[in-house]
Every structure is written in structure tokens, then in C-alpha cells.
């Protein structure tokens, strides 16, 4: 009984330390998206370089594709972009951009300067489609399957590690 009196507070202390230690490694910015496993929202947007051509959600069905949300004003996109350009050379899957709350001229210039990894970029001037995709921190990347269901979401810049350890294995699984 005497020993218990000291052991209980000690146990409580260690449990608390355990929680706090775990808390150190959690990133509050990474909010689990409720969209994973759900159908991608409807959209119909013009292409960045072809304002007369519209791409809709239905056009994308039947293939596994990557949607990368970017903007010419986005600092972190500069960090991500070279990886995306390299990744596109693998031709592993179609990569589409969602140019979020941007203007056509600087966005096109941005791609000319840094290389264009996208099969096409959807031009989302007012950010409505971005809101429907739950975008809150550009860049964000979605992997969408043949049925139009969102299977993976990356918040913040893609890295070679994420592409190799998550995107490619998931792509193989979805295509296999």
C-alpha cells in the first residue's frame, strides 16, 4: 500500500511524459483529409494555356492521375517543382496541375522558366475548385483513381521520399 502511493503518481507522470513526447512529433498543420476514400469533387475548368478548352471530372475517369495544386505566388511550390519535373520524366502517370488563385500570364511564365511537368494545368482563378478539394496550404497533391476516388493527399511540397515510398507503391497497387 505504501509503495503503491508512490508508484501511482510515478505511473501517471510517465503516461503524461509519453503523451507529451508523442505530441512533439505531431504536426498540427497536417489535418487528415476527410476526402480520402471519397469521390473527387466535380469540376469544370479551362486549361491554363488554352482558355477555350475545358477539362471536367468525367474526362479524367478511367485512369489513375495526380493532381498537383500550385500557383506562381506560392513559395513552397518552388521547392517542390524540380522534383515534379524529374518525376514527370518517368511518365509513371498523368500529372495535372491545378493553378490555384492565380493569373494566366505569370503562371504561364512560371512554367516557362521552371519547366512544365503537367499534361495540363487547370486554371482555378477564384479558388472555388480548390475549396471543394479542401485545399488550405499550397502546394497540395492528390492521387485519384480510375473511378475518380481520391486515394492519397499530400499537404505541402512533394519530396522524393513521398513519391517513392507512397505515391509510386499506391499507383502500382491501383493499376495492378
Amino acid at each position, binding site marked *: 500500500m505504501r509503495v503503491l502511493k508512490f508508484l501511482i503518481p510515478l505511473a501517471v507522470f510517465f503516461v503524461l511524459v509519453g503523451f507529451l513526447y508523442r505530441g512533439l512529433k505531431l504536426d*498540427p*498543420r497536417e*489535418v*487528415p*483529409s*476527410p*476526402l480520402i476514400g471519397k469521390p473527387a469533387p466535380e469540376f469544370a475548368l479551362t486549361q491554363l494555356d488554352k482558355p477555350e478548352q475545358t477539362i471536367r471530372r468525367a474526362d479524367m475517369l478511367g485512369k489513375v492521375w495526380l493532381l498537383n495544386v500550385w500557383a506562381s505566388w506560392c513559395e513552397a511550390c518552388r521547392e517542390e517543382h524540380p522534383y515534379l519535373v524529374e518525376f514527370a520524366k518517368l511518365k509513371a502517370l498523368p500529372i495535372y496541375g491545378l493553378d490555384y*488563385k492565380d493569373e494566366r500570364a505569370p503562371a504561364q511564365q512560371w512554367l516557362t522558366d521552371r519547366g512544365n511537368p503537367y499534361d495540363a494545368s487547370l486554371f482555378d482563378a*477564384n*479558388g472555388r475548385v480548390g*475549396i*471543394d*478539394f*479542401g485545399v*488550405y*496550404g499550397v502546394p497540395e497533391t492528390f492521387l485519384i483513381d480510375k473511378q475518380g476516388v481520391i486515394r492519397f493527399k499530400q499537404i505541402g511540397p512533394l519530396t522524393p521520399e513521398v513519391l517513392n515510398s507512397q505515391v509510386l507503391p499506391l499507383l502500382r497497387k491501383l493499376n495492378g
Partner: protein
Amino acid sequence: MADARRIAAAIALALSFASPAFAADAPAEVASDAAVRFQPPTAAPTAADPALEARMLAITGELRCLVCQNQTIADSHADLAVDLRQEVREMLRHGRTPDEIRRYMTDRYGDFVLYRPPFKASTLVLWLGPAALLALALVALTIVIRRRARLADDHFEADPVFDGDTPEPASDPLSRTGTPA
């Protein structure tokens, strides 16, 4: 008397911290207060439709802005918050209910956007945890007090006794009450 009041105030404070809604109360009130205060009855309204604006602020005051996470959508100047406020205005104009608007937000950003999280299995600890801790503390306190009440007098330090010769120490006002003159 003053002590009793102080204890009551402390308990009220503890209870207010125990509720998860505590975090949500302050910003929500600020938001709706501001909406009311900034509409002088004689001057022209600042927004096109002050009633709509007040309803919009009441709803967005309980929603977390994901860009600056400790602000509400009503308070935040982040681009996304500005867009979402506009979105809520339009939904209200189209006659959508506050519940439908909250649903619209959680469909996109999850329960994390709600400053008042729903009561369900994954939020059980959040809602009941503080009350359970308080109950546990009260049980422990009762046990300790009961046990002490049963102890014989010789377990406690004796009260200081003063004889007539020794002057009472003036520095300790508490001991004065216990000493017969």
C-alpha cells in the same frame, strides 16, 4: 465568508476550463459582439445586409481557419478565410441552414474545423475526460478527508498553547483565535 467566495470562484473557473467549448466561447462572442456594435442605428450599414453579415459571423466564429489555426474563419485575414466567408454569405443567401454550412465545411476539412467538436466515439475523451478527472479528484479528496477524520488526535501536531507569561506572537494572527485569554 470571503474564503467561501474565493473557493466558489475557483471551482467556477475550473469548470469553465473543463468544458471543451471554452476555447470556442471567446472568439464567437467577440465576433457576434463586433457585428452588433459596428452597426450604428442612424448611419448606413457597413455591409450590404447587416443581418446576413451577423448570421455569417455567428457561423464562421465557430469554425477554425486552417491557414492560421488558432483563429476563426470570422477573425482571420487569410485569403482562404476571406473566400470562405464569401462562400458562407452566398450559402446563407440561398437559404442554406447553419447545419448544412457546417456540413459543407466538415466535408472538406474534417471535424478539425469545428471549435465545438461533435460528441462521438473519437471525441469521447475530449468531452468526458475533464469531467472524469474532476470526479476522480473529488473522490480522492473525500477519501483523504474521511481518513483524516478517523485519525486519533496524536496524529496531528498539537495546537500551540500559551500561558499568561509568554506574550502572544503578533506575527501569527491565526493562532490568536485558538488561545484562551
